[in-house]
């Protein structure tokens, strides 16, 4: 009975994480298209939401990596998964509150690693898996996106550079409708799978699925797809502002190059099972598209703040995940700990959202 209650809390928490992931990452998907006025903000967010949902059904390879690649199955209990999710959600909300585009994916894996370490020690963590499947791709992917976007914009300017700017702008605004759609699709493909992986881990810990026959149940896929789509629809105006205008001011061709590069890298990574951060990748693409035109056009100070948030994400989420597990264990091994933590977290969330809504209104739409 106690195990069932914890499983229900874990699934609900995972869905909440997926929602915050979509909420947090909306900016990555739509910021460039909005900042170049290729699409009206509400339409961009609605379209991204729909494509997020569809994208979640394309692949399951990333879910398998999250479920099997980083922590030993013997160390995973439903309470461990719960604590890891709380670590990720807490970090997502802190970075959202301060308008920093950090990585939801790395927060999730950081939270999970922290709670596993608190429960079973370092021996339960696959250092090789973390290094080879998370850290190296996390470093390489934004560099690839930077390079692809930079090369793309240089070639684009070479081909269309002497044409009428108005016509070229219209052409690439049209192209951005497709590139931002593709980016939304790739976001759904890569990010929704992380939640699927975590819920599946909890189902394995609960004994519903064999650890040897890893597979994601259909209801988990549908639930994860719906949660991320709803989160994206709800949007994240503060981060849109940071990514769309504060890193670099872009023309439609640059937006197209940045989004195309981002989508290409995320989809390529999804096909080999790498749980990438869409935030890292699209920021790399934006900076590549900007730097190729003019290095000084990129606001490197803002980019530096974003990098700092990235570096902090894994350890910060791990600490919160570990502390959450320790607090939960103070109440014993039953459902009391997760229930108490959930109630406290919900109360804190209500307080933060109320204060945030009182302090700010949505960012003005460029006219």
């Amino acid at each position, binding site marked *: 009975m106690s195990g069932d209650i914890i499983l229900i809390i874990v699934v609900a928490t995972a869905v909440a994480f997926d929602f915050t992931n979509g909420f947090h990452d909306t900016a990555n998907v739509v910021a460039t298209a909005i900042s170049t006025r290729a699409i009206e903000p509400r339409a961009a967010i609605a379209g991204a939401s729909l494509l997020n949902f569809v994208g979640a059904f394309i692949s399951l390879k990333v879910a398998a990596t999250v479920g099997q690649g980083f922590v030993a199955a013997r160390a995973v209990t439903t309470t461990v998964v719960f604590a890891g999710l709380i670590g990720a959600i807490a970090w997502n909300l802190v970075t959202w509150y301060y308008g920093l585009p950090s990585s939801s994916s790395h927060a999730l894996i950081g939270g999970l690693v922290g709670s596993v370490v608190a429960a079973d020690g370092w021996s339960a963590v696959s*250092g*090789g898996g973390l290094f*080879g*499947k998370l850290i*190296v791709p996390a470093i390489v992917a934004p560099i690839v996106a930077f390079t*692809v976007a930079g090369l793309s914009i240089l070639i684009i300017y070479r081909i269309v550079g002497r044409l009428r700017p108005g016509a070229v702008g219209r052409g*690439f605004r049209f192209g951005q409708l497709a590139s931002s759609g593709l980016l939304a699709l790739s976001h759904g493909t890569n990010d929704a799978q992380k939640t699927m992986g975590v819920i599946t881990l909890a189902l394995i810990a609960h004994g519903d699925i064999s650890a040897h026959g890893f597979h994601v149940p259909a209801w988990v896929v549908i639930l994860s797809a719906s949660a991320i789509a709803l989160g994206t629809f709800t949007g994240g105006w503060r981060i849109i502002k940071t990514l769309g205008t504060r890193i670099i001011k872009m023309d439609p061709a640059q937006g197209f190059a940045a989004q*195309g590069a981002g989508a*290409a890298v995320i989809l390529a990574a999804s096909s*080999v099972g790498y749980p990438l951060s869409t935030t890292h990748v699209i920021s790399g693409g934006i900076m590549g598209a900007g730097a190729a035109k003019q290095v000084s056009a990129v606001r490197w100070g803002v980019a530096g703040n974003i990098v700092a948030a990235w570096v902090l994400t894994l350890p910060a989420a791990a600490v919160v995940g570990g502390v959450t597990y320790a607090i939960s264990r103070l109440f014993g091994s039953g459902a009391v700990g997760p229930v108490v933590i959930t109630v406290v977290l919900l109360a804190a969330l209500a307080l933060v959202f109320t204060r945030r809504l009182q302090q700010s209104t949505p960012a003005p739409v460029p006219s």
Partner: protein
Amino acid sequence: MIALASIDGGALLKMLYWSLAAGVGVAIVFSLAVLGATRASDMRRLRRSNVATAYATLAVVGLVLSVGIVVLGLILVAHKS
């Protein structure tokens, strides 16, 4: 050494060349589509219909190739996963 051994070089390379091929490939063919459409419009205004048709064809081919690369990429991702 253990850390290096944990890196799947094949997967990493695959991510690299698929990203480059798809990202840069779409940029090239879509730029050609924009070039074709813009020049076709200019040529029509100058009443050079043959040249305008050639540029319009370039625009259509560029657009079809752009869509083709995207669809092929999605099929590959879905097929491999």
